[in-house]
């Protein structure tokens, strides 16, 4: 049996939490979390180890690295515009009253479309690392799935009354 490369418990915890988010997110945003977990894993395992493993399995590390670099530039843009969208259903037609939201959606679509639906190089690397580390044998906690599932669809309502507002009125 092949020996697994050990990783820090904190690394595996962080990766599992991010992978839980990968499961909950969609529309290219999930790749953002996969990239983050890959970054954490590579920094723990070391780039030389990844390079060596890629060589063993006949994969081109330089090509994968190029793809990762491209995605690193693109994904934060997708994520920032996605986070700013208040209605994430995408089913309804554009609201003519809310011009800012329409613009944000437009920019989100512009960048999200650039992310390919099939990302073989990145997923190959992830599976390679999952197979060669104890991470592949672990499971994601139920709480990690819930974080985004419960928050993203709901509109966050801030308190109507501001702190100290009543005191100012009384004066």
């Amino acid at each position: 049996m092949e020996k697994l490369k050990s990783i820090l418990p904190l690394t595996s915890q962080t990766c599992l939490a991010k992978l839980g988010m990968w499961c909950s997110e969609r529309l290219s945003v999930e790749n953002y979390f996969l990239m983050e977990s890959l970054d954490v894993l590579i920094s723990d395992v070391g780039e030389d180890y990844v390079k060596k493993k890629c060589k063993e399995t006949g994969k081109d590390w330089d090509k994968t690295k190029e793809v990762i670099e491209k995605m690193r530039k693109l994904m934060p843009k997708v994520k920032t515009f996605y986070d700013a969208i208040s209605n994430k259903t995408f089913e309804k037609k554009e609201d003519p009253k809310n011009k800012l939201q329409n613009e944000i959606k437009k920019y989100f679509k512009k960048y999200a479309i650039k992310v390919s639906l099939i990302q073989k190089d990145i997923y190959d690397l992830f599976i390679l690392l999952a197979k060669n580390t104890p991470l592949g044998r672990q499971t994601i906690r139920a709480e990690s799935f819930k974080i985004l599932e419960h928050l993203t669809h709901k509109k966050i309502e801030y308190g109507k009354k501001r702190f100290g507002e009543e005191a100012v009125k009384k004066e």
Partner: protein
Amino acid sequence: MRLLQQMMEKKINLSNEFMLKKSYLRGISHFYGAYNLAVSLVDFNEDFKITKIRQKVWKRFFLSSSNKKILSKLMDFMRKDRKVINMAFNQIEEQDKDKEEGLGDLDRPLAIGVVSYDFPE
């Protein structure tokens, strides 16, 4: 490979749920999350032409999610791609079976008496 199985199952379940609720954009997106994992796990070499056409159709659907013609095209792709996901699940199951055999038979009839061990007085 428990992690990969869990991730794929979660994505497929979410995809089915969203498809039932008729939010197809999310459903398809979740489905292709699982497909990405399956392709890498099985090491499936997809035809470049198919990838290109699927990407084009996806792009069009992403921009106009209410178009039913494009949706039916994407559904066709999904029907074919489901095979790869099934292949990945089968592969994981087979790998797990091999590991179980390596551990041996845990509930052998002769091994039952071992539990009731009498301590010497």
